């Protein structure tokens, strides 16, 4: 009698996902995972999601004499009537545009330059990244000294070169560009390294082919570098716009927030003023909701545009 060595076939097993197991069993099996997850989830709930939900609720509430009431869109109406509201939006958009011109383009071209270098590439990379490692407050205080119209470094250099000096942060015309220059210097290291990583992933034969075709440096950048890094450029552009629309730290520390004649009052600084100077948390929340909606709207528009282009 032959004894079969083949494994005995039983009924085919049902896919695990289809298997019906009590919830308690599944929980017990994944206890470790859930246990480790709970800390992060709690942090998100307490410090991110709950404040967001609260902000939406508070935007429609007003507290007077300890009594909180629902006021509909009154907070939104109130802030839109605030004379500083539109100025803050204009300033924020101005900052964003300037920060894009400087903060988006400069790191990209610095990255291209670093990528083209044959020597001392590593040292220069460290040099470019160094400002990111400085605490933001230290960097800002450094620039505050540089910008001082009396004894600051920038005016001293201009004087040495017999060039006209500037009031920098002390003039409504130059305050915002001065803030942008400082912000760009402080933050360009990270962007440069990201662009550099993207540039290094471009196959070298594309450049060789372009060179054989007689393409100049500018044409190589335009026809090879930019198309090849479009994805990362798009992502960085989106992140940069979102970050610059929330500008607060640099203006608060460099100009005290408002700047000469309110020239550096940004939306987030106005929000801070509502909450902590005027104790009007409802209006601050309403302003936060407006900013959130603007950024979500912009991101959606941008995503659709990118998809259409692809």
């Amino acid at each position, binding site marked *: 009698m032959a004894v079969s060595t083949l494994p005995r076939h039983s009924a085919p097993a049902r896919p695990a996902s289809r298997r019906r197991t009590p919830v308690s069993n599944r929980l017990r099996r994944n206890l470790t995972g859930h246990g480790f997850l*709970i*800390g992060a989830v709690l942090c998100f709930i307490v410090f991110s999601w709950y404040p967001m939900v609260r902000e939406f609720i508070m935007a429609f509430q007003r507290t007077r004499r*300890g009594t909180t009431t629902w006021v509909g869109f009154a907070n939104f109406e109130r802030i839109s009537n*605030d004379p500083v509201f539109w100025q803050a939006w204009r300033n924020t958009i101005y900052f964003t545009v300037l920060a894009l011109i400087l903060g988006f383009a400069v790191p990209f071209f610095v990255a291209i330059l670093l990528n083209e270098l044959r020597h001392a590439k590593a040292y220069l990379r460290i040099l470019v990244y160094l400002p990111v490692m400085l605490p933001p407050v230290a960097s800002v205080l450094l620039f505050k000294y540089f910008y001082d119209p009396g004894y600051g470094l920038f005016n001293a250099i201009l004087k040495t070169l017999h060039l006209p000096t500037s009031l920098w942060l002390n003039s*409504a015309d130059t305050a915002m560009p001065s803030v942008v220059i400082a912000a760009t210097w402080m933050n360009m290291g990270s962007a440069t390294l990201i662009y550099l990583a993207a540039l290094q992933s471009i196959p070298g034969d594309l450049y060789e082919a372009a060179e054989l075709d007689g393409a100049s440096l500018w044409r190589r950048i335009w026809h090879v570098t930019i198309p090849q890094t479009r994805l990362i450029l798009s992502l960085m552009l989106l992140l940069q716009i979102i970050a610059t629309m929330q500008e607060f730290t640099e203006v608060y520390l460099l100009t005290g927030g*408002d700047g000469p004649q309110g020239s550096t009052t940004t939306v987030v600084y106005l929000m801070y003023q509502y909450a902590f100077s*005027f104790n009007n948390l409802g209006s601050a929340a309403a302003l936060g909701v407006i900013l959130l909606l603007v950024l979500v709207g912009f991101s959606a528009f941008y995503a659709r545009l990118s998809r259409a282009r692809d």
Partner: protein
Amino acid sequence: MKALRYRKFAAVSLAVGIGLLGAACNNSKSDSSGGSSADGAPLDPNAKVTISVDCMPPTTKAAERKEWMEDVAAFNKLYPNVTINGKDGFPCEDPAKFTAMLKAGTEADVFYSYFTDLQTVLDSGQAEDITKYVNNKTIPALDNIDPAVMDGMKDEGKLYALPTSNYKMGLIYNRKLFQQAGLDADNPPTTWEDIAAAAKKITALGNGAIGYGEYSAQNTGGWHFTAQMYGLGGSMVSDDGKKAAFNDANGKLVLQHLYDMRWKDQTMGVTQGFKWPDLMKNMVSGKEGMYLGAPDDITYMVQSLGGNYNDYGMGPMPGGKTTLSGGNDYFFKKGLSPDQIKAGVAWVTFKFLTQGKGQFDYARTKADGLPVGLPQPLFWVGSANDKDIADKSASATIPVANFKPYMSTNVQPKVEPVRAQEIYKVLDNAVSAVLTDQHADIDKLLSTAESQVNQVLANAQ
């Protein structure tokens, strides 16, 4: 298997730990048992009460901390069953943190604030009405306290706080620079014309000397605009608080003075955009001649910035019609038991409102190496005021003569306008404009600020 168990144990421990941490963070409520009789009666010494009180000096301020602990011990001899849980912090109030604490209801049982915070605290619903707990029995020196100061703690006739210090703004000046410039350091200028003339002489010293300094950022420009308006006899808002009242001859004069000193006389330096405490730093650096401030600015300059009392003097508010006043007080958290409120009143009275004790124990202050002689607080009236001056002079450690011009001129105090911070923010723009724009149009600036403040006031209705 063992490793798996360990991981499970670690994960569960982590989760439980986070839960316990959350529970631990939850504030425990103060207890109170025993009980006093009528609301207006002082605290029964047998009542067992625990209260938390903020603004206890931190350990970095060793002498002040020592005095606080001594006062708690002395207080406990009178009320052995009262536990004072001091909450330290410096500065006592960080406005942003204070607002957040009010919203969360996490302030101390007896909490420190500025006079100007009354409406903020009331809007947050965090203050207890203490009217029925305050009388001559609970605060024996009550009648000796300036009624105007006590009125500043009231809203619609109800008392919500007890004052601990108050001030009137004036002109702080650098005596050293005055002497170097050939000015009389014992007779500081009292009008804006005199200030402009003195500023010219100080600036002429060169070496970076600036005649006069002014704030213009983070609402401090509007704050000082208000102080100058008051000095000239003006007001920021109409009597009913519904309309702006600064777009007048006084308002123009304030901005014109600043403009002239900045651009015509060039006695204010090129760097502007100052905010608190930049002008104090400039004063301590020995480069600034004059600015507007309160007496405790000088304490800050000496204790925190390394200045010297001998170098500074103080004169009355230029113009001298009225002067912006302010100060500090203690509120009582909503929901405290009657005994907790009584214990808080008893503590604040002992520490801050009793001559010869607590902050008015000048002999001890002197022995501890702390300054005695500053004209602050100045809420005593009548014979109590005379006694305070005498006590202070007997233990004075700073040159009190430097404050004589300030003390000898009786300028009437005037409180801040309604919606003060929002109005100050608007006026910041006008002040910063005349200090940073040589072509500033003062009429236009005031007119714009007026319509903006009217909007602020309309929004508040």
